[in-house]
C-alpha cells in the first residue's frame, strides 16, 4: 500500500476517535432533550463540574478551600487522604444524582408547562451558576486527571502497521492514542446500555412516555418528578464520563465546558432525539473535519477544524433539518 493511502487511513482513524469524544458530550444533550424537550445548555458545564469533583475527591482537596481560608484566615487545602479512582468515581456519581435532585426541586418543578424557551433560559442560568460554583468549590487552576486509563501512542499498533507500506516508502506506522480507544469502547458500552434501558425497561418506557405526552404519562401513573430526576441523573453520569475522558486527555480546566459547542453540530447531524444518531453524528464530524483539514486545509491556509463542523451542520439544516436519525415532525394544519 502506498504511504499516502495509509496516512489517509490514519487520519480517518484518529478522526473517528475524536468523534467518539464529541459523541459522548452529545449523548447527554440527547437524553435530556428526548425526555423533556429541553435543550440543556448546561451540559458542557456539567461535564466540567463532574470532572472537577472527580479530581477534587480523588486528590482529597478540601471543597470551598479558598472561601474557608479567606473567611477564617486558615490555610487548609488538602485532606490527608487520596481516594482510589473507583471510589472517587462512585462518589462523583452520587454527587451528580444529588445535583439532579436539586435541579428538579429548585428549577424544573417551578417551570412545569412553561414554553421550551423558558426552560432553555433556565439552563443558561444554570450553566453560569455551575461554572462559578465549580470554581468556588474546587479552585480554578488546571488540574491533572488520572483515573488509571492508559494513555499515549500504541506501540503495538505502530509496529503492526509499519509493515503495511510498500517497499521503499517512507512510513513509520500509524499513531493511535490508547486513551481514545478506551473512550471509544466506553462510549459503545454506554450507548448499548442506554438503548437497552430505554427500549426494554419499565423506566425506559416511562421516560419515552413522558417525552411524548405529559398528561397521558400522568394518567397511567408515571410521576414526572421521578422521571426528571432519573433523566438528569443519567445525563449527569454521561457528563461525568465525557468529563473524565476529556479531562484525562487535556487536563481539567474551564475550557472543558466549551466542548459542548462541538456537540452542537453533532446533534444537528445525528438528530436531537436519537441516541445512535449522536454516535454516528460524532463519528462523521470527527472523521470529516480531520479529512478536510488533511486534504483541503493546506490549500486554503489551514485551521479548518474550527469551522468545518459548523458549516457541515448548516448544510444539514438546509437539506435535512431533523438530522440523520431524528424524528421528522409533521404538523397538520
Amino acid at each position, binding site marked *: 500500500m502506498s504511504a499516502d493511502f495509509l496516512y489517509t487511513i490514519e487520519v480517518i482513524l484518529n478522526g473517528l476517535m475524536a468523534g467518539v469524544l464529541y459523541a459522548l458530550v452529545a449523548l447527554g444533550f440527547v437524553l435530556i432533550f428526548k425526555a423533556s424537550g429541553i435543550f440543556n445548555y448546561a451540559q458542557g458545564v456539567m461535564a466540567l463540574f463532574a470532572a472537577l469533583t472527580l479530581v477534587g475527591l480523588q486528590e482529597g482537596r478540601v471543597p470551598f478551600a479558598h472561601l474557608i481560608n479567606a473567611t477564617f484566615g486558615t490555610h487548609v487545602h488538602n485532606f490527608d487522604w487520596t481516594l482510589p479512582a473507583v471510589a472517587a468515581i462512585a462518589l462523583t456519581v452520587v454527587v451528580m444524582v444529588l445535583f439532579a435532585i436539586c435541579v428538579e426541586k429548585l428549577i424544573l418543578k417551578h417551570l412545569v408547562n412553561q414554553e421550551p424557551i423558558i426552560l432553555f433560559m433556565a439552563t443558561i442560568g444554570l450553566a453560569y451558576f455551575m461554572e462559578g460554583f465549580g470554581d468556588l468549590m474546587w479552585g480554578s487552576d488546571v488540574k491533572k486527571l488520572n483515573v488509571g486509563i492508559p494513555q499515549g501512542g500504541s506501540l503495538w499498533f505502530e509496529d503492526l502497521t509499519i509493515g503495511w507500506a510498500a517497499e521503499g516508502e517512507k512510513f513509520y506506522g500509524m499513531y493511535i492514542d490508547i486513551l481514545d480507544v478506551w473512550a471509544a469502547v466506553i462510549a459503545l458500552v454506554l450507548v448499548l446500555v442506554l438503548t437497552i434501558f430505554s427500549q426494554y425497561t419499565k423506566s425506559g418506557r416511562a421516560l*419515552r412516555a413522558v417525552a*411524548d405526552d405529559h398528561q*397521558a404519562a400522568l394518567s397511567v401513573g408515571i410521576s414526572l418528578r421521578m422521571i426528571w430526576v432519573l433523566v438528569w441523573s443519567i445525563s449527569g453520569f454521561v457528563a461525568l464520563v465525557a468529563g473524565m475522558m476529556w479531562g484525562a486527555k487535556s487536563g481539567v480546566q474551564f475550557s472543558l465546558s466549551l466542548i459542548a459547542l462541538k456537540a452542537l453540530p453533532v446533534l444537528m447531524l445525528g438528530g436531537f432525539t436519537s441516541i445512535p444518531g449522536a454516535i454516528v453524528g460524532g463519528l462523521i464530524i470527527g472523521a470529516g473535519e480531520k479529512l478536510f483539514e488533511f486534504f483541503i486545509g493546506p490549500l486554503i491556509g489551514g485551521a479548518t477544524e474550527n469551522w468545518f463542523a459548523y458549516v457541515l451542520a448548516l448544510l444539514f439544516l438546509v437539506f435535512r433539518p431533523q438530522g440523520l436519525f431524528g424524528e421528522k415532525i409533521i404538523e397538520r394544519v
Partner: protein
Amino acid sequence: MSKASISIGGVTGKVPVMEIKNIVLRFGGVVAIQDISFDIYEGEIRAIIGPNGAGKSSMLNVINGFYHPQEGEVWFRGRKRAAMKPYQIAHQGIARTFQNIALFKGMSALDNIMTGRFTHMKKGVFSQMIWKGSAEREEYENREIVERVIDFLEIQHIRKTPVGALPYGLQKRVELGRALAAEPQLLLLDEPMAGMNVEEKEDMSRYILDVNSEFGTTVALIEHDMGVVMDISDRVVVMDYGKKIGDGSPDEVRNDQAVIDAYLGVSDN
C-alpha cells in the same frame, strides 16, 4: 381480570365505588362546576352528558386529579380521598382516556398498551437492567395481560405499528387498550366516540359493553351526543352550565323537562 360477583351483564348491586359530594370548581371568576353530587355504582356504566361547555370534562379531570376542586369531597371505595397528584390516583386504580387522543406517538401500539401496566410493575431500574429472574418474569406476566387486551380489542395486526401512523378510530382503540391494561377499578372515558363514523361508534359501544360485562369494570363516560350513550349506560347524569340538571336511568332522563330544555332550548315566553 375476574368478573365482579355483584355485576351480571350491567345489572348492578348498589355499592358505590365513587361518590362525588358537592364539588365546586372555579377558574378565577368562572365557575366550571357548581355544587355537583352524584355516585357511581360498582359494575355499572355511568354516563355524564350535557351540551358543549357544560363542565363534563372538568368533572372527569376532578375525578382523575388533574383539577383540584375548591369545595366538595371525592369518596373512593368508602373513603374520603385526600388531595392527590394524578399519577397517585392512577396507582389507586383509576384509568382514563382523553377526548383528544393522548397516546405516546413515537411508540408502537404494543408499547403504548404496555405503559398501562406501569402501576402493576414493581421491579426497580437495576433489576430490570440486569434483566434476570424476577424482573424478567414480571415483564412476561404483564406482557401476557397486554396480549389479552390486544386480542380483546382485535388489534393484533397493528401491534408493532407506531401509533402516530394509525387512523383515528384505531388510535382511540389503542388508547382504550392502554387504560384497560391497567385493570382499573374505575375506567373514565372522555368522549370515546367523538369524531367517529356510525360503524366505528357501534364498534366502540360494543367494546365498552363487553369490558363492562366480561371484566365487570366500572365505567364512567362522557358524551356530547345523547344517542349511543342512552343505549349503553345504566344511569345518566346530565350537566348544563356547570350544574346538574338531571340524574337517573336513560328513560327517566330522556323524559325530564329540564333536560329536554337544555338540549332543545326553551322559548322566551
